[in-house]
């Protein structure tokens, strides 16, 4: 269900240029989709929160694009629209969930970024940070027991804030003990809601934690698509080859508030004008053009295509039915009690 045209040629990725183009297109689709979500929120068309991945598209999309949907598993977090898109989640899953369509994967029972298709290897996140780390470990552990783990990778992403949770620590340590092929990307966007790094952790770089867990550790400029592709690619390769868990810490800046309800006014100008304050999409366009991976006209065409796709996904979700409380199956259990004596 998740396999899209874009995703279909993932198996034949060998050429760096193909990978970069595919990854960039996912970044672009995510950015355009999220800009639309922001407008819809501001127009009062979306109930609840809107949480964007602006500024995190490069690291997120390179992870999603490095995974093989149908074989690997991927637990995206709050700012992973680009990673979801690159992994193969159709945009309509996003608009349906934000707009409450019953045809979406969560059927109005959960919203926004709390969506997934666990049967396709993409579990639906809960809001409690760090919780997906052991969950992905469990999916991989099960594959090992079933004898299907060979060549598989499981990945999840967290932010700087989640690295302070017990779940993150427990999950990563457990994955290391179990020697699971797991990649954990830490997008250090400098702010957990409004809390800056200085009130979140005291080490120089979060990648130092990797040594403590006995796992591979990488640090990368999260605003640099080519660097992300190379580092995430290497981390995924190592995990896939049996090298155990890998942690990638990406340095970047959240280009917005925590959600669209938050103007992020606490982010100082110095951070915005810093190297990591640059927009990874703009950097990527420059890299693609200068590297000869794409021409400007092509990128403009991708942009137009993505805009149309987003319009269609929004329009379709908007005309679909929303849940009916009178027809809702108000059961939290799949088992229907009473059971009968055997």
């Amino acid at each position, binding site marked *: 269900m998740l396999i899209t045209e874009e995703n279909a040629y993932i198996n034949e990725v060998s050429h760096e240029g193909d990978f970069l183009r595919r990854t960039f297109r996912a970044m672009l689709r995510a950015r355009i989709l999220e800009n639309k979500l922001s407008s819809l929120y501001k127009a009062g068309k979306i109930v609840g929160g809107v949480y964007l991945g602006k500024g995190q598209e490069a690291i997120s999309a390179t992870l999603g694009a490095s995974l093989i949907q149908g074989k690997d598993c991927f637990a995206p977090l709050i700012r992973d629209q680009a990673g979801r898109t690159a992994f193969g989640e159709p945009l309509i899953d996003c608009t349906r969930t934000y707009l409450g369509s019953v045809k979406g994967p969560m059927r109005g029972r959960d919203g926004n970024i709390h969506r997934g298709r666990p049967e396709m290897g993409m579990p639906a996140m*809960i809001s409690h940070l760090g919780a997906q780390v052991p969950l992905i470990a469990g999916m991989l552990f*099960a594959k090992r027991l079933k004898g299907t783990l060979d060549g598989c990778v499981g990945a999840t992403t967290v932010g700087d804030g989640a690295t302070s949770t017990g779940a993150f620590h427990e999950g990563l340590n457990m994955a290391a003990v179990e020697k699971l092929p797991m990649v954990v990307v830490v997008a250090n966007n400098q702010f957990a809601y409004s809390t800056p790094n200085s009130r979140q952790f005291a080490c120089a770089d979060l990648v130092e934690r990797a040594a403590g867990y006995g796992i591979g550790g990488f640090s990368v400029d999260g605003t640099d698509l080519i660097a992300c592709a190379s580092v995430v690619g290497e981390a995924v390769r190592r995990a896939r080859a049996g090298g155990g868990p890998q942690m990638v810490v990406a340095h970047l800046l959240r280009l917005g508030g925590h959600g669209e309800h938050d103007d992020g006014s606490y982010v100082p100008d110095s951070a915005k004008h810093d190297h990591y304050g640059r927009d990874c999409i703009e950097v990527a366009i420059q890299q693609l053009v200068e590297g000869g991976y794409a021409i400007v006209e092509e990128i403009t065409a991708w942009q137009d295509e993505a805009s149309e796709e987003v319009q269609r996904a929004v329009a379709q979700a908007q005309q679909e039915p929303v849940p009916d409380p009178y027809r809702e199956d108000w059961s939290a259990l799949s088992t229907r009690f009473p*059971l009968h004596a055997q």
Partner: protein
Amino acid sequence: MSGVTYIDAIREAQETLLREDPRVFLYGQDISNFGGAFKATKGLAEAFPNRVFDCPISEDAMIGLAVGAAIEGMRPIIEMQFADFSSIAFNQIVNQAATHYYRTGMPIPITVRLPSGGTPGSGPFHSQSMEGIYAHYPGLVVVTPATVSDAYHMLVDSVKLDDPVIYCEHKFLYRWLKAKSIKGDGLPIGQARIARPGKHATVVTYSAMVHEAVRAADRLQADGWEIEVVDLRSVKPLDLDTILASVARTGRLLALGEAFPWGGVTAEIVAKVTEEGFHLLDAPPQRLNARDTPVPYHPKLWAAHRPTPESICDALRKLLSF
């Protein structure tokens, strides 16, 4: 053959499940070659290589891993070393496992074994009864076996359910409670049992308190009172039909539990019976629980903290004299 203990039954159920279902595996602290803190998994690691795993002291990650494995089609049984430590796993249990079916349509068939309840000298952090906490949350089945045969059959049935099950096994019953065999009466999860028939008052209870209630009932028999004891077997779902049928016979209700007194299973029973069976009651329904302090260490304090046959008799006399 000297009979089967409650802990033997739990061990045998896991052996049966491992033998019959390749999707089952056991994950917990010290459960592999060591056989578990209470020996509930003794010999299973040797009998079933790569199916029984020791894990780090990471209760949150243990349940997180179990949920992930369940998504991949497995049926993990997680042993919490003590029910008390499941507080560390609370988030994964109530937010990850319990919400999953409602949110995504995919049920999570995990079974979490909670060695529950007090024993002399165990103190505040190795004695807790957590069933009321978990029963509060939608999306969990909470079972509380009181007999050797239920310990066996309800564990087997729990793993066969497609939903997450909190299996509360009582540590006080582990070695003390014996039966000739594990032969059961075929009752499904969700159905209560009349543990002792009577006609003057109903005690609705579960787990180890079933035995204390039966002792109290035996004592009151000398005074001519016939007390009915209902063993709930599972606290969620709650078998209100059996409870109401009993109250219809006796007209009097005492809800008895070993957990802390604020809210919880006994409060739910009284609320439900009052709502739906008010007309059946000849006296105000009563509750008897542990005291509202942490579970104390010293055996003398502990014995006075939990309900005893004496305090149950007192509560019943008050109920009968109304």
